């Protein structure tokens, strides 16, 4: 029986010639990326612990937590992270502060930390996002202290599921819709397992799409997601890579516990929520529901292609007077690219508020002007739809792709972007 990508990466990182599902291994990590709300710093100071390799630890200022009751609020946490970095000898360039900042699992991709064939660790729930680069990306929200002192992690070699992709997404469909499709279809079958993609459809997915799909791992119920290495990945990561790397490919007879096929051309726009992300419905079942808030951003969206998709709908139109549309680019680099491309201008002209890059309105504790009040309904591209996630417990969050959010912001109700695209074609 051959090896999966996950088994090959874990074998390489643990110094074994091969590993089998169920083996307990200790694997070396290539780096760790941390968000700007950390619980380990006090512990490191109290116990006089040292970071195993300060050059391989980065911090990304993304949430900018605000509430006074949070012990990690930005006003105190950002200076604390910087003084911790000084104490530990972490280079200044490893602190992605304003001007270079972005979400903690996007920065490592943009800046060539998350490399094919390696074990990467992120201290955020959504860190599996990095798996788009053919790495084993572990979300380690808790239990990062032992990884940081040793540069190693314990792992039971997980079962893997193979998903073979064909076709390409139709216009106006993106990675988020596919994540909702997988949430609805797979459920228990992928619980705690690694999803590995293959097939000719992979080549039709841009890096942005792959990152958005890998981002959904926790919501789908998987441990992480790994994309294969191909020309799209190597063209993207090659110039950015901070060191040499060696991609992995699954063996043709790899040990998968389940196999699914998806034709991407059959994926349609979907929505998830409110309150329960497993409540997945076709867009046409919710069109017409009034909205007062619209959010484009977060680590499952907020990339250049998401902003461009929203701008293509909003260009020359206006946000409905009863709606506030807030857009948060995923990183400073993405913000600058969107600005150069004229996308930011289009968004502003349409009446959007564009904020500093980062996590944005996805969680009510973050720095964002968008907080939901009682009775509000928000259409959002963000990660979670849990009750109270974006503000009041008496509000609703419905998740959708950036085109749907843009169309809904114009209409003041959940709307199919096709109605705006059709008019565009007539006028052209």
């Amino acid at each position, binding site marked *: 029986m051959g090896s999966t990508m996950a088994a090959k990466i874990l074998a390489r990182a643990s110094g074994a010639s091969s590993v089998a599902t169920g083996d*307990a*291994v*200790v694997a070396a990590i290539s780096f760790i990326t941390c968000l700007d709300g950390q619980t380990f710093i006090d*512990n490191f100071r109290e116990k006089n*612990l040292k970071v*195993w390799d300060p050059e391989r630890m980065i911090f990304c200022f993304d949430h900018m937590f605000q509430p006074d*009751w*949070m*012990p990690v609020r930005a006003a105190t946490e950002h200076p604390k992270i910087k003084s911790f970095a000084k104490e530990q000898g972490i280079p200044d360039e490893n602190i992605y502060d304003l001007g270079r900042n972005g979400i903690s699992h996007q920065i490592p991709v943009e800046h060539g930390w998350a490399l094919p064939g390696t074990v990467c660790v992120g201290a955020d*729930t959504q860190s599996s996002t990095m798996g788009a680069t053919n790495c084993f990306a572990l*979300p*380690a*929200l*808790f*239990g990062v*202290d*032992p*990884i940081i*002192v*040793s*540069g*190693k992690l*314990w792992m*039971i070699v*997980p079962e893997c599921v193979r998903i073979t992709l064909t076709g390409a997404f139709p216009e106006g469909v993106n990675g988020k819709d596919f994540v909702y499709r997988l949430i609805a279809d797979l459920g*228990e079958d992928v*619980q*705690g*397992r690694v999803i590995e993609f293959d097939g000719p459809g992979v080549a039709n997915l841009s890096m942005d799409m792959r990152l958005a799909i890998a981002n959904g791992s*926790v*919501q789908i*119920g998987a*441990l992480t997601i790994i994309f294969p290495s191909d020309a799209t990945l190597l063209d993207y990561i090659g110039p950015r890579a901070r060191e040499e790397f060696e991609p992995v490919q699954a063996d043709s007879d790899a040990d998968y516990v389940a196999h699914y096929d998806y034709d991407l051309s059959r994926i349609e726009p979907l929505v998830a929520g409110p309150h329960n992300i497993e409540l997945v419905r076709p867009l046409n079942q919710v069109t017409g529901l009034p909205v007062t808030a619209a959010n484009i951003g977060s680590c499952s969206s907020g990339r250049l292609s998401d902003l461009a998709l929203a701008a293509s709908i909003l260009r020359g139109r206006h946000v409905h007077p009863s709606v506030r549309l807030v857009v948060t680019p995923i990183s400073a680099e993405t913000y600058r690219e969107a600005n150069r491309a004229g996308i930011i201008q289009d968004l502003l002209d349409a009446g959007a508020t564009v904020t500093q890059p980062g996590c944005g309105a996805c969680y009510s504790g973050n720095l964002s002007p968008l907080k939901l009040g009682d009775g509000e309904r928000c259409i959002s591209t963000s990660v*979670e739809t*849990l*009750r*109270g996630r974006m503000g009041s417990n008496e509000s609703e969050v419905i998740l959708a792709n950036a085109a749907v959010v843009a169309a809904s912001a114009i209409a003041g109700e959940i709307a199919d972007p096709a109605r705006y695209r059709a008019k565009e074609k007539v006028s052209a």
Partner: protein
Amino acid sequence: MKLQGKSWKFGNGLGATDLVSSDYDKLGMTHDWDGCAQHLLEKVDPGFLGKMRRGDILIAGTRLGAGHAHYYMTAIMGCKHAGISGILCESVNTLFQRAAIDAGYPVWPLPGISDFVRDGDELEIDLATGMATNKTTGEIKQFTPIPELIRDILNAGNSLNWALTLAV
């Protein structure tokens, strides 16, 4: 490494926010673990805290620990501080299990465990050998032992203590 106590059975899909409701997010975020413990299973089984005793064991079905990881530690530390000695289940969300093991708290899938005990049965299980005794029915069953590496972490108290013993 033995767990011994009454078995309290819950069904499939017991999520982190079923163990401690997201209403108590603030208690978790401020690490008020005793506070979290006072709301254990409050919405699933309102009388639970009144009937359980220290050392008792939760028995879950499939998909234990589903949901957003933000709420995991609130749930795990809530169980630990309420005196639940561990959670055994048919299957578990790997990240939830990982968070528990890192905290030195046994959460482990043992397929077949929910058929082996009834609600309220006295269970004794040695995690090192996998040998389980249902002291109410007298039945004995051999489960798969948990790996030595994991036992090392649990014996060290948490994964930080364990990691400090690794050669860097």
